[in-house]
């Protein structure tokens, strides 16, 4: 089968190290930001940084960026279902325990 030969260019060591440096940098930022009082934005910024980090890991370390498009669709479906479920759960919680 043609897929077995891994025809695409093998990524170099350099790219991986750059991505790793980015991940460490983002970790430092998120820890540093936790020291400030960002009021309601604490969770949002922490999650936003975590999402960027996981995108870096999936796209580069896990090769999703260069891999077959089918994996992007799969990941999208999986995340979409998780989001739908959590949003619907919160339709119960936010109205059952309204914020004061």
């Amino acid at each position, binding site marked *: 089968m043609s897929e077995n030969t891994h025809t695409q260019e093998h990524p170099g060591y350099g790219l991986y190290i750059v991505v790793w440096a980015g991940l460490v940098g983002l970790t430092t930022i998120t820890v540093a930001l936790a020291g400030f009082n960002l009021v309601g934005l604490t969770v949002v910024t922490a999650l936003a940084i975590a999402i960027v980090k996981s995108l870096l890991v999936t796209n580069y370390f896990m090769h999703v960026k260069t891999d077959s498009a089918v994996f992007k669709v799969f990941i999208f*479906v*999986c995340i979409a*279902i998780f989001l739908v479920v959590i949003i*619907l*759960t919160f*339709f*119960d919680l936010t109205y*059952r325990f309204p914020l004061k």
Partner: protein
Amino acid sequence: MDHVSYLDYKGKHKGLAGWLLSTDHKRIAILYLVSLIVFFLVAVTFGVLMRLEMLTPGRTIVDPQTYNTLFTLHGVIMIFLFIIPGIPVVFGNFFLPIMLGAKDVAFPRLNLLSWYFYIFGAFLVILSLFVGGGPIDTGWTFYVPYSLRTQSNVTLAVFAAFVIGFSSILTGLNFIVTIHRMRCPGMTWFKMPLFVWGLYSTSWIQLLATPILGITLLLIMMERIFGVGIFDPALGGDPLLYQHLFWIYSHPAVYIMVLPAMGLVSEIIPTFSKKDIFGYGPIAMSSLAIAFIGYLVWGHHMFSTGISDTSRAIFSFLTFIVAIPSGVKIFNWVATMYKASIETRAPFMFVVAFIVIFSIGGLTGLVLGALNTDIHLTDTYFVVAHFHYVMFGGMGLLFFGGLHYWFPKMFAKMYNERAAKWGLLLFVIGFNTLYFPMFIMGYLGMPRRYYDYLPEYKIYHIISTVGSWILVTGILILIINLIRALLKKERYTEADPWGGTTLEWKVATPPSLENFDEIPVVEHGPYYRENLIKPEKSH
């Protein structure tokens, strides 16, 4: 390589080991079939005992605690060991690779492993009856906080369900990769048989919903063993979150049960109508749509639990949407039969029975999906009647339908069609006598899972119990008829007894070990007929 059938094949292992250690998808399917029928009959027995207990008010044959155990085990065994694995593990395993023109599933060893997980889980269920605090009495839903407090052996039973869930995940994973990677040349996505589309949708639910149940059950174990505070209201937990997580899996699981059955209908109808299916695309897409919408509606199991009004309205609205893709299927099936020269052979009659019974189940589902009527009917026999009409009348009936459709291909034996039709008739009569009175008594207020009842419900309970005897007679006739066929000496080697068009009817009966002597090349859609007589245009 010699053309040797999968039944006669002698590998490294002989006798029983040749079956228990075989990674051939057809042999694994037979392993599943035997185990499923055994568990089905066990759970039927529990059901019959429950009906017998309800024959008279007060004690008839068992005490209340035993009754609680009976309905719990009936539910756990039927749902986790029969209905959910059901059609995919038997007919999916056997026919998915053949329908795709492949030699086996993508991961044959994983396939065998998932059978062992299934059997191990079943063993744990049985074990849980005899060790620790004794048989579980929580109902199959394991609702907290009772499941955290009861002395009965919930921990082991829940672990059993976890293991069986793992088996289900592995099957789903295997099927998805098989469908993506193993289609023969020419078999494009829209040339796949509709049964495959049903399996594909089902597999995605198995894969993406079962882990949620897995973690929920694991957390119950954590709470019971280590006293970790998660759901226990005494430790600040919210029991409704348990119900959310439980139904986030268990509602989509309803579609795990019924989507393969619907796929089966889409196979049987064109075969006996001698026509191409009407509306292939919509039927295929409606399977995917049902699978997705199935994730959006779990809250309708919780209308009376105290979840917020806003979410109740949203869930009720979303529930109605499921009716659309289901309706699309029903209309397309009927349109396929329209003006066809239908052969009313035994497998087809199962489909006819299914459409009627399932429609009753589906329409009463709308009554329960509507918020206001549900408040009146929730936790009554109306609900019991409804889900038996959709589950037993849907998946259960078609499990037998599929068995009668593919039995000659699987075992190379032909059964007595007259006996099968009589068995089915008794099945349908018994089924309706058993469950229809439950709609009425539920409407009148008879609560489910109660051991005792007021005298005014007695007449309904008597009718219902009598119905259970008729139903069991029908089931026994069906099963004995098939066993008698199995015991016949001579082989039935007709490749295509019904005039089917999909690939499984083009291979030998029984199929050879590798299914195909050479991998086929597909040119037409799955239900294409060369000498199709076009129906005359109506005026």
